């Protein structure tokens, strides 16, 4: 048999070249896949935060088993791992490179007179979908410095509203003027390199090109920390953070 003159090998190489070309010239598709990961923990004895009494709002009080709801200002997991920490790349991204906002919306729900999630990131122009699972009157009031404030009531029968944020802005509060204990925080970014910790305290930011980046971590009460991290083409670097109560 005459062997086919390496058509398969040439074909594979052509495919590979095509894929590389597509990746190189497709906006928003990172060629490299470096990641930064880490864990955020709380250092010291956690303060006892006052739980939230929702007896003023019967529907929500009932949703919490007729007990006070836990305070979300400091949520700790095993080993004092901190939830609700926003981590994002604050410096080092290639100048002039743009990242399209995902078509899928970021969802915030008003459930049990709490915002779920409590901390979230969103890209500029990405749809921000506001749900009202409680079926009572809520009011969603954003308090940004750079973006237009969104301050709108959401009656019981209006289950969903949508808005977006036109400008990048670091963390700002979202609150309900009907239920003053309700609070959430949003960061608006021009890129997708952000992550929010859950109760395991872990975050992962992936898809980064090789380079040196400044990472900022933020907590609603304990402020921000930054770290500078260099990654290669396919690295996974780990950077842990610790928050503590300020010294008295």
């Amino acid at each position, binding site marked *: 048999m005459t062997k086919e003159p390496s058509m398969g090998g040439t074909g594979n190489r052509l495919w590979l070249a095509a894929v590389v070309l597509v990746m190189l010239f497709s906006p928003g598709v990172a060629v490299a896949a470096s990641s930064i990961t880490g864990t955020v923990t709380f250092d010291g004895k956690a303060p006892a935060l006052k739980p939230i009494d929702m007896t003023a709002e019967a529907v929500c009080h009932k949703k919490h088993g007729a007990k006070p709801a836990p305070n979300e200002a400091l949520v700790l997991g095993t080993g004092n791992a901190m939830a609700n920490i926003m981590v994002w790349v604050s410096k080092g991204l290639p100048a002039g490179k743009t990242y399209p906002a995902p078509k899928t919306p970021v969802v915030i729900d008003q459930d049990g007179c709490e915002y779920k999630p409590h901390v979230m990131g969103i890209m500029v122009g990405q749809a921000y979908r506001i749900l009202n699972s409680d079926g009572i009157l809520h009011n969603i*009031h954003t308090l940004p410095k750079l973006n237009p404030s969104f301050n709108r009531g959401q009656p019981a029968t*209006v289950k969903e509203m949508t808005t977006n944020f036109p400008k990048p802005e670091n963390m700002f509060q979202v609150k309900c003027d009907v239920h003053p204990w309700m609070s959430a925080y949003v960061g608006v970014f021009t890129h997708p390199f952000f992550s929010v910790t859950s109760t395991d305290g872990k975050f992962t930011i992936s898809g980064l090109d090789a380079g040196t980046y400044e990472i900022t971590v933020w907590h609603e009460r304990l402020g921000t920390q930054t770290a500078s991290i260099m990654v290669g083409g396919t690295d996974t670097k780990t950077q842990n953070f610790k928050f503590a109560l300020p010294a008295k």
Partner: protein
Amino acid sequence: MSEKTVVAPKPHVAHEVHHEELGFWRKYVFSTDHKVIGIQYAVTGLLFLLFGFSLMMLMRWQLAYPGVPLPLIGQLFGEARMPGGTMLPEFYNELGAMHGTIMVFLGVVPLAVGGFGNFVLPLQIGAPDMAFPKINMVSYWCLFLGGITMLGSFLVPGGAAQSGWTSYAPLSVIAGTGQTWWLIGMIFLITSSLLGALNFITTTIQLRAKGLTFMRFPFFCWSQFVTAFLLLLAFPPLEAAGVMQLMDRVAGTSFFLPSGLVVSGQALANTGGGNPLLWQHLFWFLAHPEVYVLILPGMGIVAEIIANNTRKPLWGYRSMVYSLVFLGFMSFIVWAHHMFMTGMGTTMAAFFQTTTMIISIPSVVILTALIISLWGGSIRYNTPMLFAVAFLPMFGIGGLTGLPLGLNIADIPLHDTYYVIAHFHYVVAPGTIFALMAGIYYWYPKATGRKMNETLGKIHFAGSLICMNVIFMPMFIIGLAGVSRRLFDAGTAYAFAQPTMHWNAVSSWGAWTLALFQIPFIFNFFWSIKKGAVADENPWQATTIEWSAPSPPPHGNFAQVPQAYRGPYEYSVPGAGKDFVPQFEA
């Protein structure tokens, strides 16, 4: 009535004035003729009344059926106002603030003062025009610009003003862009009123016919004269306050923002030293006299029509005039009864309670005189008379229910409830607006040369009378139960409001039915221009000077120099050949 004649400045008359032929724009649009301007004011006012009424009908849906999507048209208002046809609270606030603003400043005042004042007053005093015709034109166009600004505010991001028609600070200062438009619109409207007031006062004093002494004035002239003083003296503080609030919003000043103001948990940066109560004082210093601006022209219209249709002189004319002047004066020292809840001291509260009780006396004198004027009359129940007679009990209900609000101790539980809404709507809706309707039917023949259809007029009247009461009477019940007027859902979330919720549906159906009963009026208004019964110059056999002019009057108004020979209401004079002796006949 005194037969003494006085020397008044000689007015120009039609045949003495050179009339150049005017083009369409100068004749009908940028006209300086008081009659055209009066009609412009009246039509503008009527259109804004209809628009303001439409805003209210939307609100009434939300109050009757809170949270239920508005069928058919609800989705037309967009996701930001009515997602899926369900009204958001912000849109309700928008509707509430703009309903009040439009009905008061763009509906009733332009119709009552700009419309009737401009059209009737010069004719009634025998003048060829207003003293300052060009200022008169500017006055109308300021109103027009103010109206356009207010309408335009619905289109700005965040919508129109949402801080109530009173625009209380600091809420109004931190509100959205619509509030800035509201303030600019108000500055136009106030300027319009000030120019008009100057013109009315000058015209009334300088251009009255020979022999027309003040005590020979028709009561309508007196009402417009006193109203003009109220506008002239009360509006400047609000204009100043409006400019100050505008500066607070756009220039970083802090006239009305107190130190340490915290909004939604965040301290505002540019605040300090200002006083929110200052806004309330400046607003109510205008807005209480404004209540009388709304009602006095109505009283004047009703007085004319009652005298004409009872075929009797007004009972207690002089008492009515003195009461009117006293009422105008007193209206400047009652404003703080709107502010009992601001924590004012007992001395101040006692003062304003006292002045408020006192101001009710001249109102009662006028109302009583009008009621007694009916006694023994040979009453003609035509459409204007029906509206005029209905005004009396409607205004009576509005006035009497205001007394508890003027007393500090009763105002505390009633303040800001639906009781207040019911009270002042009885004054201005079945009160003033009925009077204005009476005036439209009464002077329509003078403006057009034709009468409006009586059958349609009576349908309009009967339906309106019933519906007005169906709308507003339940609000007394809701208010006495303590339900706040500010709740976008009529109090759905409050247990104490539940027993009154069904009254909201009653009230709303009354409002929507009232809209249906305006259709005969709207049809009649336009149909009668061409098809109405032809009217001569004095179709009501009336006595006052405007009925000596042709219908409609030409430019310059009178073919002959009018002169007043007697008082305004010489009806059923014993020994006279007919049951009226016009004051313009020698």
